[in-house]
């Protein structure tokens, strides 16, 4: 299949920008070629990449999930407290505290995602409103829950060490174990979106609900499934957050709401749905991490200037994409 120049641009541009930003970072701070700092960037990309998996799924059907940030914070708190509480108890529960923490968080993410999906499809709420409401509700719930838990977990406990090294340790060069698992799952997601019946249905629903409905594709089912995926991805990202931070707080996930959306959009996926995919979203997530955790930090320009620069970069990239998609339309 011959690709139009607009589509090639959309697929390649995020990676080109990523490489340029990284080179700029290294030019300013040569330290960043070393494995240590690289692995810090990588585990940050992994966490953002995991939330963005769910985000890209819902954006592909023209939705958006604003609740992901508080789902992350909530599961950060839950996983930290489950590990912290159970580890001291010993016995079966103590030995498997990490497993229970992960299961509890996945369940929480799935339930919140399912609620989002049902509110959107069955009550006919706009995606943005439904997930914004859920974002607030989750914030309230975790405030109630937080009263009962310690703020930090004992970093010396065994399960906590396992989780921390899963997220941050290097197995070779700068590669972390979590990043390998993430890339494997990412490849599966890319294949599912591109090559399976389910993937085709996602794009069809994103481009035309009317035609999908008439063709016997259930937009309701597709929507609910994708919001569940988004909830579960955010929950797993929250567990990874616990591994990287070794503590929990009420604001640990905050940035990920806009970062996950920005990662998807910087990857060239249309915010209106139906076009794009996860492959370039990975580049989008890496761009944000290199920019926010790398370049803007080493430039010593103060947080106000950092925020402005971050916004400008996003705008410029979107302008280039729009130019690309225009060419795409013109060529037919």
């Amino acid at each position: 299949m011959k690709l139009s120049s607009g589509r090639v641009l959309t697929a390649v541009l995020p990676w080109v920008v990523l490489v340029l930003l990284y080179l700029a970072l290294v030019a300013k701070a040569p330290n960043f070629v070393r494995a240590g700092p690289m692995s810090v960037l990588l585990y940050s990309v992994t966490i953002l990449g995991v939330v963005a998996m769910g985000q890209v799924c819902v954006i592909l059907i023209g939705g958006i999930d604003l609740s992901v940030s508080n789902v992350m914070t909530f599961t950060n708190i839950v996983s930290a407290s489950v590990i912290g509480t159970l580890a001291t108890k010993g016995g079966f529960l103590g030995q498997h505290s990490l497993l229970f923490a992960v299961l509890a968080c996945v369940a929480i993410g799935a339930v919140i995602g399912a609620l989002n999906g049902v509110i959107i499809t069955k009550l006919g709420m706009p995606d943005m409103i439904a997930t914004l409401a859920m974002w607030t509700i989750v914030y309230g719930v975790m405030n109630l829950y937080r009263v009962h838990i310690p703020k930090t977990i004992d970093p010396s406990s065994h399960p906590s060490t396992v989780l921390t090294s899963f997220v941050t340790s290097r197995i070779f060069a700068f590669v972390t174990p979590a990043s390998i698992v993430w890339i494997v799952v990412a490849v599966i997601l890319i294949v599912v979106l591109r090559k399976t019946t389910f993937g085709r249905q996602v794009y069809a629903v994103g481009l035309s609900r009317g035609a999908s409905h008439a063709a016997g594709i259930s937009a309701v089912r597709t929507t609910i499934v994708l919001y569940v995926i988004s909830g579960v991805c955010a929950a797993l990202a929250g567990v990874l957050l616990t591994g990287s931070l070794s503590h929990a707080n009420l604001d640990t996930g905050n940035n990920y709401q806009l970062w996950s959306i920005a990662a998807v959009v910087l990857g060239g996926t249309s915010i209106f749905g139906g076009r794009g995919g996860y492959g370039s979203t990975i580049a989008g997530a890496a761009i944000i991490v290199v920019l926010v955790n790398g370049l803007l930090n080493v430039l010593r320009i103060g947080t106000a200037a950092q925020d402005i620069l971050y916004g400008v970069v996003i705008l410029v990239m979107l302008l280039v994409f729009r130019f690309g998609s225009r060419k795409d339309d013109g060529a037919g």
Partner: protein
Amino acid sequence: MSVNNTPGLNPIVELRGIDKSFGGVHALREVDFVIPPATIIGLVGENGAGKSTLLKVLCGTYSADAGELVIDGVPQTHYGPGGARRAGISMVTQELSLFPNLTVAANIAIGREPTVAGFVSGAKARRNAEWALGLIQSTVSPDAVVRDLPFADRQNVEIAKALVDDPRILVLDEPTSGLREAEVDALMEAMRKLKEAGRSVIFITHRMSELFAVCDSFMVMKDGVTVGTRQVGDTNPDELVSMMVGRDIKSLYPPKATVDRTPGTEKLHLGGFRVGRSVGPVDLDLFENEILGIAGLAGNGQNELLEGIAGLRRSTGTMWRSGDPKKRTHPYSTPGAAVRAGYSLVPEDRKGQGLVLSFPVFKNVTLAGLRQISRFGFLPQSKEYEATRRYVGMLDIRTPSESAVTAALSGGNQQKVVLAKALDTQPAILLLSDPTRGIDVGTKQEIYTLVRQLAGKGVGIIFLSTDVTEIVGLCDRVLVMSHRQVVAELEGDEITEESITRAAFEGDK
């Protein structure tokens, strides 16, 4: 060649030697088109003949690659949509361009809101809208919100919007395809009035009767060139059709079948079938080899009936088909279940329901039959291409490739893709909702032949149409609907345009 170039009447617009290409496709080749004042010109040709492209050049949407555009004797250099508007050219396109959340008056005034002392005047906009709607005898209220209007009324609003400027040239690109019969008459009356006032109209329609009722002359196009021009007195429908198609169409319709209607051999049975709260109850039997027509004035529940059978609308009553392995006797509540059970619908709204327009052709062809083609949930692309190639050959779909974007195909070819999608599910019952709307004669004939072949191969066919001529030509039996009920059943020689129209109107009383 010029059309009706009466001495002493200088043409309003002259297009000379117009050339236009898109990529490798030569859409127009050295086309001349002269528009004298006070003339109604029928522009005829199959889909993809270049009619719409020519009109878009006239309206400044496209600029020609070569050729001259002369208005009132002055050659135009920087033309564009603004130039067309200054020249008094107003167009009604096939795509509706209304704002659904605004009122009729606001839509008609859009972009040229009348002002009083510098302020937008709603009252004046309302009066203008009333005047324009009055010209086509439409009963739509200027205060109605467009979203709440049926399709035919929206079409009228679109026409009124073009009329409100009092254009010197009114271009109507298939304005009648969604209109009710009385509205078509009113529109033709308005065209004649414009002509009396010295205005000209360019009229595109696929209905011959309308062309001969109102036009003074015709220009026939095929494959981007002008085949010829004719005065209304010097030609007849047969000649126009053969000019359009480039060959003689001896018979538009395939011969009818002999149908055995022995009770107990029904292919499909509906009993006390109701769609939602308002349509029905309908009793219907469909037999082997049969094409069953559903006729009636537009908007009398025909489309709802088909959507009900196809599971797009909630229905109650009995419904079964012969050969159903599950022997189900009631309607399906989702389109997915109906598709799996062998019911396939070609929906009325091609762009909104029939196709994912930005998908490549092959993804549309397999969209409803994904389940059959998939292996363990995966879609083997070679199979999808293979299926698409099969339908491209069988239905003669003109597309650059299987992976071309569907939106880039002409209307007739898009409709063939919808048909391919419906056939790809291997339906036992095929429901066709106005499948030839806005399609040229040649493609219509191909679709009629195909539908007849399918009926012969054992597919049960229900054929809904708002075009009475094709119902008469194609169907073996006809149910006429009025007020959301079946009011008449016609068979064999009883099926005539007169009997159908009479039944539709009698039911209306």
